[in-house]
């Protein structure tokens, strides 16, 4: 089945109904394996057990940025191709991406207290991620303010494209500025600087969270399509009654 076939909402609903249980199931298995591995991973020689916060913090950061990336692609789909599913994708992804960004901020803050001695510093990495969270809230505000869904989709799409400037800033903030946050250590030229005993559980946890993200987005998209059907039916009903 080609991706273009999924533009038909009925086909997409059938696809989502078939996929969501499988994705969710694999996510549960990945979590069972990943949490087990994360618990078995050795403590850091300096940070002790607090290093395990990383298994939540890194996936949160990655999915917060992936969420905006998905919304950016969907925004192009909305503005360029008027793809009916792009609106739904953008709307469904926003709260989920915001939740993962918040998870990144909260876990990072709790991790910062024992290791840096403070919950929060205004360095470039932390500030740019906080900005990403605020941009998410702005996009959600657009969706909640504009009544007509297709008009809301286009307004949100333009804001999403402008906000995408923040993604490279987040990624390179630790290289452009001297930050308290450590420089890139998982994905970098010349291999990761993290030891395998921690890197492998981190990888599994990231996969598990990404599967969860995909499951949640698909489920939210299904809900949104059904919600739009209900809205259309109500409008028809209301105009028939009058």
């Amino acid at each position: 089945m080609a991706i273009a076939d999924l533009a038909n909402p009925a086909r997409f609903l059938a696809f989502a109904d078939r996929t969501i249980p499988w994705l969710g199931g694999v996510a549960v298995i990945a979590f069972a394996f990943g949490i087990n591995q994360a618990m078995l991973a050795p403590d850091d020689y300096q940070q002790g057990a607090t290093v395990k916060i990383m298994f939540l913090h890194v996936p949160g950061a990655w999915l917060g940025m992936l969420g905006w990336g998905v919304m950016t692609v969907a925004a192009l789909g909305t503005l360029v191709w008027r793809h009916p599913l792009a609106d739904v994708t953008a709307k469904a992804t926003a709260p989920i991406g915001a939740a993962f960004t918040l998870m990144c901020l909260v876990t990072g803050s709790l991790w910062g207290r024992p290791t840096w001695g403070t919950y929060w510093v205004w360095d470039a990495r932390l500030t740019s991620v906080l900005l990403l969270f605020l941009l998410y809230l702005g996009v959600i505000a657009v969706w909640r303010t504009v009544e007509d869904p297709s008009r809301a989709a286009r307004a949100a799409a333009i804001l999403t494209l402008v906000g995408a400037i923040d993604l490279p800033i987040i990624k390179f903030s630790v290289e452009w500025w001297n930050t308290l946050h450590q420089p890139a250590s998982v994905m970098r030229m010349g291999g990761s600087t993290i030891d395998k005993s921690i890197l492998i559980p981190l990888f599994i946890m990231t996969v598990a969270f990404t599967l969860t993200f995909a499951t949640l987005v698909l489920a939210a998209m299904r809900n949104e399509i059904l919600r739009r059907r209900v809205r259309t039916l109500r409008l028809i009903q209301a105009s028939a009654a009058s």
Partner: protein
Amino acid sequence: MKPLAAILFRDMRIAVRVGGGALMGVLFFVVVVTLVPFALGPDLALLKRVGPAILWLAALLASLLALDRLFAADHDDGSLDLILMGRAPLEIVVATKGVAHWLSTGLPLVIAAPLIGLSLNLDGPAAAALVLTLLVGTPALTFIGLIGAAIAVTLRRGGLLLAVLVLPLCVPVLIFGVAAANAAVGGPIPFGTPFTILCALTLASLVVGPFAAAAALRQEME
């Protein structure tokens, strides 16, 4: 050129006449800055240190004030439809309206800043640096604001949404504007470093703002 000049002068005239927002911006700016010593206490050394930051923050808020009516007023009286149907490229028209908005609300702030800066104990060099950063930075605030104004054009409570959308995008301008103003009066970094980044941000917003705002207007007005 002629229609653009007509739009520029029309917007300027509307802004300075009764019901326009030009002087409200400056008034708001002055009132906000005047409130600060009441909150922080009249410690002149402290005010001198935080002065540039306060003036920048007040300028950011003041430049938002009249922004929500920038396209909404034209939408209400139908002239936005005429602009959309006109032969002049929408991006250029939007940029012209941005320039008119900056001339009527941004430039007065820049002129008022050194005067009101006296009340925050800013001396000559600090005030000069502040004026220079505001002169370069406030167009960026206006042109980023254009995007929010275009998105909120058909909304009934657009003003509230506008602030939520625009303020996060203005953060880099605020960071480097205040950094440059502080660097001029001593500090570890030379004035040129943050100032050139501020110039770059302004130039980028002069390009991105009109294109994104024009795209938003076309989508909204369909």
